[in-house]
């Protein structure tokens, strides 16, 4: 099956310092794809490029089977988008905002939109500009969902929201995903949140996609090893060594990637002892990956 989002060799530049070079990205159908990366790494820019809000210098972007450059309106009719900043008319009330949106999307589900308004406990008569940050976030998610899209592109949808609102918003999202075979592309800083429900993960740093793997493989593959007596250079390792730190008493901590249980045998061959294999959660793994990506070691 073709990918829902497919980016090939994307090249974009803004100003003199920011550049996205040779970006390849794939979101499989039905995936809940978590897009991680530090501030300024280019996540929002990549999302904007994917939806045609920005023009790349070169590269091909295909969304829902169509090239976004040529068929943006057709594609966007099936995409529910929540941008990182509130983008809606501040003067319109919640009810008027819903009516405005409904006029543009033939797939709009009015009864469900009204149920979500009640579920989110929103006052329909409030102008959008006067809502609290949490309420604005709820309205934006509501709009994206009530459209019944095939693809949801969410740019830090829970950023700056309190935990209660975050739960409400994510519950509604997962409720929708459970009903439909929708694909979700969600970027966030809240790694633990993504860890709960994403089955794919892409990590961005400094304009490059550092890794793109199924979630389980990423989480299971990154480990912290307690090693003793290893020689200074460890050649021929079956895993990827990300970092190596000396603790006291000749013991070391190795951070490795693509680990599999059978690889313990390697340490005998180099005359070292593997004392412990420690699991890392997503956030720890993400931090280690970036740390070593920025200052590569041998």
């Amino acid at each position, binding site marked *: 099956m073709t990918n829902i989002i497919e980016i090939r060799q994307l090249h974009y530049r803004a100003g003199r310092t920011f550049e996205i070079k040779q970006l390849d990205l794939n979101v499989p159908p039905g995936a809940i794809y978590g897009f991680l990366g530090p501030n300024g790494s280019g996540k929002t820019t990549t999302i904007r490029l994917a939806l045609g809000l920005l023009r790349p210098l070169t590269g091909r972007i295909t969304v829902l089977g169509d090239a976004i450059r040529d068929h943006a309106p057709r594609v966007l009719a099936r995409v529910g988008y929540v941008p990182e900043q509130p983008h809606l008319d501040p003067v319109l009330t919640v009810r008027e905002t819903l009516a405005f949106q409904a006029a543009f999307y033939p797939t709009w589900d009015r009864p469900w939109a009204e149920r979500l308004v009640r579920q989110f406990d929103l006052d329909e008569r409030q102008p959008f500009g006067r809502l609290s940050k949490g309420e604005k976030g709820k309205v934006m998610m509501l709009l994206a969902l009530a459209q019944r899209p095939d693809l949801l592109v969410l740019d830090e949808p829970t950023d700056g929201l309190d935990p209660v609102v975050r739960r409400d918003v994510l519950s509604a999202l997962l*409720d929708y995903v459970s009903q439909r075979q929708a694909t979700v592309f969600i970027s966030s800083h809240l790694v*633990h949140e993504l860890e*709960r*429900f994403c089955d794919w993960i892409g990590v961005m740093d400094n304009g490059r996609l550092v890794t793109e793997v199924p979630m389980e493989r990423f989480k299971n593959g990154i480990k912290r090893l307690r090693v003793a007596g290893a020689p200074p250079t460890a050649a021929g390792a079956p895993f990827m060594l990300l970092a190596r730190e000396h603790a006291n008493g000749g013991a070391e901590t190795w951070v490795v990637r693509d680990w599999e249980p059978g690889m313990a045998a390697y340490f005998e061959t180099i005359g070292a002892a593997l004392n412990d294999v420690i699991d890392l959660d997503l956030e720890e793994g993400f931090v280690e990956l970036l740390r070593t990506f920025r200052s590569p070691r041998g």
Partner: protein
Amino acid sequence: MFDKLDPRSPTPLYAQIANRLRVAIAAGELRPGAALPSVRHLAAELRVNPATVVQAYHDLESEGFLEMRQGAGTFVREVAPESRARERARQASALVRQMLSEAGRLGVSLHELQAAIADEIGVGTA
């Protein structure tokens, strides 16, 4: 029942969910014939991937704890006492394994551990 699901734990989420359900069924908290929440409902409530819930339900179905009836929902099956006992034994082993591994990490010897157990159990039946 499902509070403190820990996505950071090395145990995958579907296994954590399945464990909770298995324990609840074996202990009789969930009676035979009781309806379990739909995949959609549980995924939304726990904020997990629906595939996670599906996997947990499927695992339990293959173990004979649940029955997924097309169109009607998911229901608890009548569980034989042997299965319950087996489940309790399994939970007990897991507890012991956990305790032993933690003791090892802390440098507590087997002897010290046994003494502590006798002590605690002794307190309980005092």
